């Protein structure tokens, strides 16, 4: 194989470029605020866990994680539950306007979240959903359901129609076929779709912040409000940032094989 001169160096530089911000965040989270603002140090000289301790003990901090996880999980479950039958219908049935409907669904994703912030705020305030995890979970569906439908449609289409027919011949009713045969067959697709729903919902800030105030405030919103009278609490903010990265990293770790297969099989 032809080797590019200095390829190791280029790779190393690239990795440093990618990882440096994350390292710096982790680095900061273990420093005291004095160390952060007074000197520039490459590693914590007086390492401390006080910021993490604060987050795990102060309810106004850890409840943010719980709130975030709550609406993210809710949203993922709703999105997949709604998208699975829709994807099956788009893949298997021809009906009037099916292609237009499919495209229209997808085009929902093209509008910026800010467009929806106002109508959702007003609507949810009116019906008493405001400041609950359900508000954010349902709002995120407008982006996640189309995405999940689109991903899952590719996977369902990858399952030959004869599988359906054989299952009926072999004595399965439609619901049983759907749950016992189809869902296991496209498990990797469901994994991929769930991952994308999770990630989107986890990182989305605008809707999440607009639709909550106290009770269901997500961690990302809490993090943006840490300027206090005493100035910026850098270390605490860094620790919160590290903890925010972790769930995403965990999810990626668990679905990494599925995603590779998802890329090879269908959409994504």
């Amino acid at each position, binding site marked *: 194989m032809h080797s590019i001169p200095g390829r190791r160096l280029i790779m190393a530089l690239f990795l440093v470029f990618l990882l440096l911000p994350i390292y710096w965040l982790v680095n900061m989270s273990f420093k005291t605020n004095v160390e952060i603002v007074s000197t520039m140090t490459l590693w914590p000289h007086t390492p401390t866990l006080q910021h993490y301790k604060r987050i795990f003990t102060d309810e106004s901090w850890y409840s943010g994680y719980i709130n975030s996880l709550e609406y993210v999980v809710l949203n993922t479950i709703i999105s997949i539950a709604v998208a699975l039958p829709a994807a099956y219908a788009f893949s298997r049935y021809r009906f009037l306007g099916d292609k237009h409907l499919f495209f229209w669904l997808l085009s929902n994703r093209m509008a910026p979240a800010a467009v929806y912030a106002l109508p959702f705020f007003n609507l949810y305030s009116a019906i008493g959903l405001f400041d609950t995890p359900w508000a954010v979970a349902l709002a995120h569906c407008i982006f996640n359901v189309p995405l999940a439908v689109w991903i899952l449609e590719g996977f369902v289409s990858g399952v030959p129609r004869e599988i359906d027919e054989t299952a009926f*011949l072999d004595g399965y009713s439609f619901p049983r076929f759907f749950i016992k045969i189809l869902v296991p067959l496209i498990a990797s697709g469901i994994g991929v779709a769930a991952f994308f729903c999770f990630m989107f919902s986890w990182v989305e800030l605008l809707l999440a912040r607009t639709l909550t105030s106290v009770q269901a405030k997500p961690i990302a919103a809490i993090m943006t409000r840490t300027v206090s009278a005493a100035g910026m609490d850098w270390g605490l903010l860094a620790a919160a940032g590290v903890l925010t990265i972790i769930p995403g990293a965990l999810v990626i770790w668990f679905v990494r094989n599925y995603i590779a297969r998802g890329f090879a099989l269908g959409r994504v």
Partner: protein
Amino acid sequence: MARIDLVDLAHSYGGNDAPPESFALKPVTMTWRQGGAYALLGPSGCGKTTLLNLISGIVTPSRGKILFDGRDITPLSTQKRNIAQVFQFPVIYDTMTVGENLAFPLKNRGVAKAEVNARVKQIADLLDLTPYLNRKATRLTADAKQKISLGRGLVRSDVAAVLFDEPLTVIDPELKWQLRSKLKALHREFDLTMIYVTHDQTEALTFADTVVVMHDGRVVQSGTPAELFDKPAHTFVGYFIGSPGMNILPAEVSGHEARIDGHVIGLRRNYGVLPSSKKIEIGVRPEFVDVAAPASGLLSAAIERIDDLGRIQFARVRVGNAKFAARVPPGFSIPGNTAGLIFNPAHVHVYADSQLVEGVA
């Protein structure tokens, strides 16, 4: 196990209001005997698969009824019809083992566990799947997967019929022969009604005791392989079955004579006067026409080439503009490019608008 009656059954993918010529299956009334081995033969796109899917209930007919043992099952779903169907490409449940795949149709119908195991073992033995029983069904070869599909189709002993939709397409020729004889053996052993769709006449003629030939959405003939060969009811059957196919020549027929370009060929039966509005043709299989040296009493033909099939030789000739094939008698050598044709009158059939005309003895 059941007798299957089709009553005026027709289907159009364009809905019931589509013009009659566009129907994928034109109205057909016929009976499939309990325990029969049927082959449904015809070129691609002639409606074989549609007919099969109508019987299994995957497709709901536009018109007509389907009866199992006299009971109308047209509105019943696939699940309730008690039919097994094997598709052209392997359909397996990837998430189950081979054994679970085979047991699946039985389990769903609440068959006792001991019986399921016995039956699965029996089918697996027949199809040489025993070594794989505990393996995941995914990542097997296409051959093995198709065997699983076949096995799943055959595992139930109480089905009304087993439908095969060109099941051996993906299988090696060598294995094809074995599997086909196994299917025949199974048919004899279990007294199952089997309907086997294919476009390969060898497959159809070796598998079935009744061959149903379809053409352009119509069932044109149903009979034993010998009947199809000796007395095709439609020119398409004559042409499609046999290699080379039947010769079809436009002719004028009256009484005991057929006239081609002024040359007279004697017929065994009396056809009287046929309606002049119809297209009259005679059909004769190449096996029943011999080439000979040109002579005044014989229809003359221009020889294009000789095909040596080993056991038998066929001359490809032209009569006027029409292509024609005829047998070359052993030891015969052709002096020039022209030859005479000797017809065996007992095997010359007359067709009016492609339909066989029965003469009077």
